[in-house]
């Protein structure tokens, strides 16, 4: 009697999960594909090869690659600092690093406008640097601005994946190596890095996925369609244009991002699996 009862509960719970899963996660994906192909393959291709789309793809890739690179460097160094040393203010530092997790991305965009924008306090500084170097770099409403905003929102992604791993690993191995006279770089390369390898890769994937999908933060600092727009912004522009054609185009471009998201998910699962297996 009890056995039967427990089976029923099991299948009810599985049923609820499957329905939730299909409705909330799978159906939206199918919807994107369905809407993207609404007007047939030819217009789908046309939407993907439109100059604005290609420009947006380029900006998206630039922002993603730079954000991943910067945050990888930061993630490795910060996690080394936070797990291998004791110092005053360590908790404060680690809380500050996690700020971007808990604030609206819109605020990130806003913050850059208020720092580097027309009335921002750092504007004269940037102008001065530009004058001195003969360059014309703007840190708002430009590709560098998009890059910066992307870095902001993905800032803690990599450090957060590595820190728990290094923390669990402890410091003994590094101390032992240091006792034998190994240099910091040797210790990192030979001892710490092999431990963080999979976590780092995992963090890079999460960081990349968030970077190419970021919307709110870049929306605030990017105004020129075809120049500084990323793919999500291009989708927004197409969707907000409101005509049936442009909405279909918006979904066509979306399908590109869905593809990228799925690739990231697959990579993530592979890395997770390999990482677990190599866990020593």
């Amino acid at each position, binding site marked *: 009697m009890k056995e039967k009862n*427990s089976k029923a509960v099991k299948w009810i719970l*599985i049923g609820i*999960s*499957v329905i939730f899963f299909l409705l*909330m*996660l*799978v*159906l*939206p994906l199918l*919807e994107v594909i369905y809407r993207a192909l609404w007007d047939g393959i030819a217009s789908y291709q046309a939407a993907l090869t439109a100059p604005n789309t290609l420009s947006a793809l380029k900006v998206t890739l630039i922002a993603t690659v730079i954000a991943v690179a*910067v945050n990888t460097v*930061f993630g490795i*160094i*910060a996690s*080394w*600092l936070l797990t291998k*040393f*004791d*110092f005053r203010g360590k908790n404060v*530092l680690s809380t*500050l*690093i996690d700020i971007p997790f*808990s*604030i*609206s*991305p*819109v*605020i990130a*965009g*806003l*913050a*850059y*406008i*208020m*720092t580097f924008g027309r009335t*921002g*306090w750092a504007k004269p500084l940037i102008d001065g640097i530009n004058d001195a170097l003969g360059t014309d770099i703007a840190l708002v409403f430009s590709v560098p601005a998009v890059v910066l905003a992307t870095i*902001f929102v993905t800032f803690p992604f990599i450090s957060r994946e590595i820190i728990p791993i290094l923390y669990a690993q402890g*410091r003994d191995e*590094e101390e032992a190596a*240091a006792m034998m006279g190994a240099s910091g770089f040797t210790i990192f390369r030979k001892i710490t890095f092999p431990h963080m390898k999979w976590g780092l890769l995992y963090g890079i994937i*999460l960081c990349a996925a968030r970077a*190419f*999908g970021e*919307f*709110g933060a870049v*929306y*605030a600092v990017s105004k020129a369609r075809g120049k500084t727009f990323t*793919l*999500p912004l291009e*989708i*927004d522009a197409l*969707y907000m244009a409101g005509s049936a054609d442009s*909405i279909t185009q918006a979904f066509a471009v*979306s399908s590109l*991002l869905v593809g990228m*998201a*799925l690739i*990231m*998910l697959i990579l993530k699962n592979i890395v997770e699996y390999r990482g677990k297996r190599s866990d020593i």
Partner: protein
Amino acid sequence: MKQVQTKRKKSIIPGFGISMGVSVTMLSLIILIPLASVLAYSFRLSGQEFLELMTRPNVVRAFVTSIGCALAAAVINCIFGTILAWVLVRYEFPGKRLMDGMIELPFALPTAVAGITLTKMYSDTGFLGRAFEKIGIEIAYTKTGIVIAMVFIGIPFVVRAIQPVLEKLPASYEEAAVMLGASRFRIFWKVIFPEIAPALWTGFGLALARGIGEYGSVIYISGNSEKNGTQVVSYIIMQKLNSGNVDYEGAAAIALVLLIISFLMLFIINMIQHIASRRTNV
């Protein structure tokens, strides 16, 4: 021969100075200084202007909408997240691997894509929208729509917070309770729930924080109607940056209040989580 040293506790592992320098510099340049600018900007408003802005009906309603919908979505996520995590950890069924792998889709899928897709699905021309319309429920361009979008982006936080705790929970735990004759409901509330409660609070906090600040996935399905109260705070801030009459000071002030509310909520949740975990870790 006594020499007193007041040095920092020195570690034998090299690289403290440089890693501290690089970390703090990058953190300051990328996060802290820009955020400080928001603070500085919001202080350009006088106290009276600030109050006037914050008590404007549309601003107040936006805060109510953002926080209310985020709370509702976080609660829904806790319920479904717990069920999903439980099913993924405890049961075997076809398609489980796929489900497990796809749980994080909302993290990977760009919010704008999620936003327009959910809108089309639940609008009167969409498949689900029509179905719900027949039974008299409107979803797109209402608060219900906002909650659905927030449920979508928040669900992985809860599942991923609880899953590892459930995995570590030994089966002998429940078996012991069963041996003592406890009912299933009792086992869950008295034995399992206290164990996952701290993780559940973590997931709740993350989902809530994400919901309160969410922009991309919400703005399409919300319809941003002032009349219907479907404007969220992020939208109000963005509006002040975009419209013809740019209002940076106002945007900064609202952003500051949003920041403070987010931090306060996270702080309270951390406290609750701390108490909950103290209870189980004795």
